[in-house]
């Protein structure tokens, strides 16, 4: 094809945080593609230095409003690893349940509020009308079932207050959990409906690009307590080896670092988790996945949304099973002393693999830290996908082609605030 065209999409909407896309096409091929994160640096790795370990999870929780529990849990696990302590059973139980709540909240908001408008031909959810308004109500109901878990177990829907390294300051009574269970049971059908909606849109997408998937792996469908990390290239790692395989690097046009795994681009998130753990999905989620016309796993980035919808079913069902067995114990408040050490925490956040590491001094104050977050791991793949996708859509009118690019970016559910948490000090 003939075409030369410059695309510049400023302040991409319906993603978390600020980013632009600059893409140049020369002779029908993508000449340069820059996903520019324009959010200011946020310095979290430096801000936790000098902080007592007990305060770190509450600080890093503020890296992200959408996945605060994931950051909180990852930091908590890393600090427990550094202090060589075992959390109480109660704490583990509540943490896991909170992550189900967070996945439900995050996926429901992303799928219905940010992605669905694209497929319904609307600029935003605010323009929905008639029957479409029912979808908004459905989305809010699913989201509520998720945030109700977080509120009952953690005090509020965002930035949980009661989780500490080693324990929880307060556990909910059974009555509160019963209410949560009722809420979850009432959205089972809505979660299943979400899969049908996104199957319908996914099956129309034919674009594919082969890449590697990276996710936690375990006996269940693991979201936390990461021990074993798998890559679809066959690599199996313990969490201590992860930093040797993930290479972070800076690109001059963006405030977010990019990453490679074993020297290659890769994808983390719902699609990667399903690719590596589909057997461990809740039977109900597995059943609905098998009944979809779109066959997962595939290498179509747009399928991420379908994978998220399947996870929505998985998390609702697993949370019901999990919380049904909840028995409140008297809270334990162990006196945890600081000690020097290095700790690593790896979890699955809604957007993918999340890695925190902290060095503590003898009194338990942070001396160094590093965080690798999902969106920065996916940015490289977003750019490579666009390289392949754009030549196939050049015959479209420009606004439509731009919408397709935005759709691809949104399908990854990028979370920009997270990705600029860092500042690389040894800078190129």
């Amino acid at each position, binding site marked *: 094809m003939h075409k030369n065209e410059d695309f510049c999409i400023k302040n991409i909407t319906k993603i978390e945080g600020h980013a632009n896309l600059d893409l140049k096409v020369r002779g029908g091929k993508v000449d340069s593609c820059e996903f520019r994160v324009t959010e200011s640096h946020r310095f979290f790795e430096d801000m936790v230095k000098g902080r007592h370990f007990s305060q770190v999870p509450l600080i890093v929780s503020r890296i992200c*409003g959408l996945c605060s529990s994931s950051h909180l849990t990852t930091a908590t696990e890393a600090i427990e690893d550094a202090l060589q302590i075992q959390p109480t059973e109660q704490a583990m139980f509540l943490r896991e349940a909170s992550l189900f709540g967070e996945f439900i909240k995050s996926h429901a908001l992303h799928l219905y509020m940010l992605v669905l408008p694209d497929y319904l031909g609307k600029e935003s959810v605010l323009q929905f009308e008639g029957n479409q308004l029912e979808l908004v109500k459905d989305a809010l109901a699913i989201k509520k079932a998720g945030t109700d878990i977080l509120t009952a177990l953690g005090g509020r829907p965002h930035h949980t207050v009661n989780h500490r390294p080693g324990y929880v300051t307060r556990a909910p009574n059974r009555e509160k959990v019963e209410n949560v269970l009722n809420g979850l049971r009432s959205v089972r059908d809505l979660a299943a409906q979400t899969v049908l909606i996104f199957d319908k849109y996914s099956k129309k997408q034919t674009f594919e690009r082969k890449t590697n998937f990276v996710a936690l792996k375990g006996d269940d469908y693991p979201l936390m307590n990461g021990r074993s990390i798998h890559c679809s290239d066959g690599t199996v790692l313990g969490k201590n080896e992860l930093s040797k395989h993930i290479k972070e690097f800076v690109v001059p046009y963006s405030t977010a670092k990019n990453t490679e795994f074993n020297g290659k681009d890769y994808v983390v998130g719902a699609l990667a988790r399903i690719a590596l753990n589909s057997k461990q999905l809740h039977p109900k989620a597995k059943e609905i996945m098998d009944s979809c016309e779109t066959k997962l796993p595939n290498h179509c980035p747009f399928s991420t949304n379908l994978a998220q919808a399947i996870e929505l079913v998985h998390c609702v069902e697993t949370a019901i099973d999990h919380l049904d067995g909840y028995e409140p114990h008297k809270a334990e408040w162990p006196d945890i002393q600081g000690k020097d050490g290095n700790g690593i925490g790896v979890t699955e956040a809604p957007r993918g693999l999340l890695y925190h590491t902290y060095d503590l001094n003898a009194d338990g104050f942070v001396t160094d830290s590093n965080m690798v977050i999902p969106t920065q791991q996916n940015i490289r793949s977003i750019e490579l996908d666009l390289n392949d996708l754009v030549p196939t859509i050049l015959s479209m009118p420009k606004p439509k082609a731009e919408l397709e690019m935005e759709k691809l970016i949104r399908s990854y559910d990028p979370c920009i605030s997270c990705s600029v948490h860092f500042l690389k000090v040894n800078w190129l």
Partner: protein
Amino acid sequence: MAKKMRAGFYSLSCCEGCELVVFDLEEKLLKALEFVEIVDARLFDGNHPNEKLDIAIVEGGVQSELDKKHLEEIRERSTYLVAFGACATIAGIPGIRNSLPKEMQAKLNSKAIIPVKEKVFPVPAVVKTDFVLQGCPAFTHELLDLLVALYHGKKPVLENIPVCKECKERENPCLLFEGIPCLGPVTYAGCKALCPTERAQCIGCRGFTEDANFEALRKRFRKMDVDERIIHNLFTYFNQNPFKKEGE
């Protein structure tokens, strides 16, 4: 019925959690949309940078010149401007950067791709701010109260009372008596003592009260044998260090 109020939501540097809490209004959100029209919100709508607004709701702090320009431009086209949540009202967690040692700050600033300002500024330090709604994340019921009041041509009054008052009303045992350092005595109420009710210390996310007696609280912490570094950490969680001397 009066005309719908035209509102915009804006994020400066932050986690965007405060914009997300708006969805926690759930059915009340749909009710609110009967008298509020959201005309500009990048997170869940398109970009409409030229819309005139009755009310601009701004989350996040000012970290860069870009943020500052954006904020001034929002101010320009809004009748009322609301600082929404701790980053916007008191610089919040990103403001921890302001309490880092000077050399470290200089090092950080010199490495940034988008030049950052020397300090993180809350919204009222940069532009005229009509209302501040505190908290990390901000509280939806306060936003709703504000919107309803403005719609009826009234202005809400924010009380200058500490978290302790609401904590007592909930009959919580005092954490200070259990040896847990808590910022309840010096922090604005309005949260219904959410954290102490979960037996978690108040970390000051709603900002310090006007008449806060920091010295007395610090003495109390020392009497409890709290490590000086932890005391410093606590007072600089969300707020500027109140013990900082001029020019420090």
